[in-house]
């Protein structure tokens, strides 16, 4: 009896030990398993390919010297492929806020012969600073990177990282020309009004999209659109040998280069509402 019991116990122990090693090996899915030859990703969702995107959001300009602008923005885009789309970004300058420097100039700047060409009546300086009115920006959107994001290890969202580039048509209001032949002198208070023009500039940037559902995304986007403009309405250039000194005129010579930037938060809606998926 003792010997049988010993043999039975030893056999069961050996079988159990073998079973343990088999258990660890069974965690791997080998090439010969049911996933052999299968694609690395099944049911990959192509959120962009073949879909229209309608976007709506808000933008804020960055590093402004005299006036910050908050845009209401929209985007219409068609995605030819998952990695390439063509569309139009646009915005309307809804809110403009003066910076602290603008308020300082308005309250502190002396009104005398030295500043008469540059600074209007007290309490009115903010009115002479240039502002954005609209932006229309045809662009290409290139999305080379796509992936997933885990937030607090609880919430998982699909993402893509994109860059965009195009041409921006930027509607501006800036101080009109004065002081030239046949024009009023720039010290005339009526010359501090704004006139409209459209600036054309390259536009580029990058963004991150988070796909919260099959047809809604949230995008964070940075955009740069550098061009020259006269942000304060000052006479700064045009005189002297190298045109770097004031010439008692305000005109295109007084525009200085600015690396204009904005940050956009935007919700996107996709049509058709269901993305294509791979097998």
């Amino acid at each position: 009896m003792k010997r049988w019991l010993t043999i039975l116990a030893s056999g069961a122990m050996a079988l159990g030990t073998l079973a343990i090693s088999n258990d660890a090996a069974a965690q791997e899915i080998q090439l010969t398993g049911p996933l052999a030859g299968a694609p690395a990703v099944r049911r990959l969702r192509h959120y962009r390919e073949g879909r229209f995107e309608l976007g709506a959001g808000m933008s804020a300009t960055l590093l402004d010297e005299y006036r910050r602008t908050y845009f209401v923005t929209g985007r219409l885009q068609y995605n030819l492929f998952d990695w390439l789309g063509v569309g139009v970004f646009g915005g309307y300058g809804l809110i403009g806020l003066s910076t602290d420097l603008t308020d300082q100039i308005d309250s502190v700047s002396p009104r005398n012969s030295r500043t008469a060409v540059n600074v209007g009546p007290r309490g009115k300086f903010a009115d002479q600073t240039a502002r954005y009115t609209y932006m229309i920006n045809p662009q290409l959107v290139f999305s080379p990177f796509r992936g997933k994001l885990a937030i607090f290890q609880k919430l998982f969202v699909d993402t893509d990282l994109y860059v965009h580039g195009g041409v921006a048509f930027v509607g501006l209001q800036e101080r009109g020309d004065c002081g030239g032949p046949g024009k009023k002198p720039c010290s005339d208070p009526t010359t501090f009004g704004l006139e409209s023009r459209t600036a054309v500039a390259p536009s580029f940037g990058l963004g991150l999209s988070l796909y919260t559902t099959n047809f809604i995304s949230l995008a964070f986007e940075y955009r740069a659109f550098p061009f020259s403009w006269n942000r304060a309405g000052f006479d700064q250039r045009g005189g002297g040998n190298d045109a770097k000194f004031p010439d008692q005129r305000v005109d295109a010579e007084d525009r200085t280069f600015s690396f204009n930037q904005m940050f956009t938060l935007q919700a996107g809606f996709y049509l058709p509402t269901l993305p294509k998926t791979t097998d």
Partner: protein
Amino acid sequence: MKQARWCLLLAALMMLPTVAMAQPAKPAGGQPPAGGAAAPAAGGGDSIELDDPKPPTDTPPADTPPPDDGTKPAGTGGGGICEIDPSACPKQADLGKAAQRDVAAEVYAVQQIYFLRRGRFEIQPYWSFTLNDQFVNHPGPGLAVNYYLTNVLAIGINGTFYQPFNVEKEFNFQNRRASRVAVPLNEYQMNAAANFTYVPMYGKFAGFGQFIFSYDAYVVGGVGIARTKPIPVIDPDNRKFEFDNRLSFNVGLGFRIALNRWFAITTEIRDYIYVEQLEALTVAPTQDQQQNQSTWFGEKPLTNNIQAQLGVAVFLPFSWDYRLPR
């Protein structure tokens, strides 16, 4: 001794259930593979062979309705995954094409996190750029060193050196000349802070469908000192300032892209918040008073120095052992 044998037997019997866990799923319908075509996999496991020729089965005619008892006909192929999720079951017609694909040598049901931070030092040299000072640029090199207590929480220090790199913009001169309004300006020497870093977000990106890299996003915050001084603009003939310490708090957001298990590219937005000392906007009427330092200082506004930091991160040690095998 007898008791020991019984204990051994009991222990061995308790291990037997693991044999069942390790067994492969039975073919659809609970029938053994027809023809016995599937060869046992290496290691003794009975893996399901989808690549093998379809075994001969007693396939009913096409016009024969399937049984309505919920069971699948034998020999449909696909094995366990077809039973778990019929929609994910590989199509017979696709197998030939799928077999031509390059496949990874091993595929694991649950992948390990590629980039672990716990117990590692992060050495992060960076270059910072000013984001919110229209008047003076404050670029400069910096270095951060962090130690990750857990995979998501680190303590560390960082410092940035600005002194030789402060650049006053031409815009200040243009503005002063046009409006006769001087904006008080400040330059920075350095800052240093002790920080906590928390990593709530991580993910993966597939680039061009060819390569995969891991990334994470983190928040950082801390306290330290900043050394700044006013640039004499209002009365440069008499005023000469020295750098002084300011208590500085900072918060920031960062984004880190891991190129391999120990090297990453980082970008960070950091807001250093401190009380700045500005130059006085008025000049004392007499020469003696103008040279009296007590007349040189003006307002002390709360200041945000927001900067972008672009750098790389090296994690030490370079490698690690996972706690569990995959």
